[in-house]
């Protein structure tokens, strides 16, 4: 496992204390009058990969969307509770209606289930967010683009065709381009909603390995239905479950603990289903 993550600490005595990056208390999400998620409290630790698992419809996507206020785009969506982005002694209230969401989304990037590169050239896909955030110097742009593409292992594959349409890339390449597009803004946190589920096993493996290489540098929250994948890449895992049709966080802890010694019977049953 990557030596820079807090992930290895469970192997021996803890060498460092996990630092919360996102602090979530009693978070609830509802659409119109229908609550879909309630009473979620957990800390997302800095530099760690937190895997969100749970059955379909239990509110994982809704939870993720609340973290970067993408719920603002959904008419009728309401988020309640406390949600703070912790930065040393400072903390930013993310549910503040007056919050600068553009600045927030620059710090908290997002990757979607279906790769969604813009119908532009590869270069333009990366340049657009940079330019829109005020970066215009050509050499700085080129440098950042190369760095981001290298970070996702795409540079060697596309360096000769940066002006080709992004939609001509394969699915796995498109997803890595989308990750690069998020990375190019130098975010602190990356939210990923089933980033591998639309990809074939090989592309999925490549993306997974790449995500793993991000741990330590970024705080990653990843939703996945692939429990083996959650176990492989997660440092922490959060298990969501539905009670009376409302999603809830049932268990949160070190990945190894969740998978090897789940406390809650529902977690045990869900994990057990994977084996059986």
């Amino acid at each position, binding site marked *: 496992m990557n030596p820079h993550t807090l992930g290895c600490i469970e192997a021996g005595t803890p060498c460092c204390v996990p630092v919360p990056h996102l602090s979530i208390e009693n978070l609830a999400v509802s659409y119109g009058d229908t609550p879909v998620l309630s009473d979620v409290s957990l800390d997302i630790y800095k530099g760690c990969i937190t895997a969100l698992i749970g059955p379909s419809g239990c509110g994982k996507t809704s939870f993720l969307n609340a973290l*970067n206020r*993408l719920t603002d*785009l959904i*008419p*009728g969506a309401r988020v309640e509770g406390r949600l703070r982005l912790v930065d040393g002694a400072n903390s930013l209230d993310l549910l503040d209606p007056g919050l600068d*969401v*553009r*600045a*927030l*989304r*620059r710090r908290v*990037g*997002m990757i*979607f289930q*279906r790769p*969604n590169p*813009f*119908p*532009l*050239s590869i270069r*333009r896909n990366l340049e*657009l*967010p940079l330019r*829109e*955030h005020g970066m215009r110097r050509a050499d700085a742009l080129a440098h950042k683009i190369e760095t981001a593409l290298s970070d996702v292992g795409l540079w060697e594959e596309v360096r000769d065709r940066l*002006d080709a349409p992004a939609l001509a890339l394969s699915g796995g390449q498109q997803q890595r381009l*989308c990750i690069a*597009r*998020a990375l190019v*803004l130098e975010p602190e946190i990356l939210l990923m909603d089933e980033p591998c589920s639309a990809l074939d096993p090989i592309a999925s493996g490549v993306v997974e390995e790449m995500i793993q290489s991000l741990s330590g540098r970024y705080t990653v929250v990843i939703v996945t239905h692939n429990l083996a994948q959650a176990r492989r890449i997660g440092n922490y895992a959060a298990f969501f479950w539905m009670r009376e049709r409302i999603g809830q966080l049932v268990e949160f802890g070190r990945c190894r603990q969740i998978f090897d010694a789940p406390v809650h019977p529902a977690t045990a049953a869900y994990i057990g289903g994977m084996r059986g």
Partner: protein
Amino acid sequence: MHSVPGDRLFGLALWGAALSVAAVFAWLFVDLARLGLGALSWDFITTAPENAGRDGGIASILVSTLLILGVAVGVAAPVGLGAAVWLNTYTRAGGGTGRRIRLALDGLAGMPSIVFGLFGNAFFSVYLGLGFSILSGGLTLAAMILPVFIRTVEAGLGAVDDGWRRGAAALGLTQSAALAHVILPAAAPAIGAGLMLGIGRAAAETAALIFTSGYVDRMPESLSDSGRALAVHIYDLSMNVAGGDTHAAASALVLVALVACANLLAVALSRRLLTRRLAL
């Protein structure tokens, strides 16, 4: 590959339908060409009409037509684009406002053009004091083509992948940046189609123009001069001028060519402007 009898029948029916449509157009076109092709020449396009259009050409009429179309499209395109974007962005939740506006637009789209003519005459010519002028005619046509243009563009915007919108928002792009760089370019084909429909309808219009831009066949000197559009000219030649049939047919051929060119231009322009310029 096997083909089921029912399938073959279905295929035949489709071919039959397509062929009969093509046949109608071919017949129409051949008829026009038989009558008018002889009168068609470079001189016909570049000289002024004489003797109520029986002799001479259509130079002044062509200029008036282009000016009227230019005003109509120049006004309808930006206004319609704005309205479509507004409808698509702010009235998506299936709320009452959006539904009522769409209903009103659909009603207007089906309105007979003579109603627009009367409206244009009352509003632009009389109330705004523009009189019988190319400006009145162009504005009236703009009002007439707006409903269909807005609905077409709006449908195009609605068909744009929502993943792009969410992706743009998640990158902290402003709504206007997402619109300019991603959404509108993706909707370029719909915008081109909307323009084509509008230009086609405007170029073919007679009723709405008789009351607004009039039928003076002199060369217009400014937008506030009256001017006779090609369709009006064709109508006048075939209805009111004995012996005007040949020139009516020749003018119709010019009109067909004009609409075809305008359509090609609209498609090329929306592609180029929206995908190329904004994308690179």
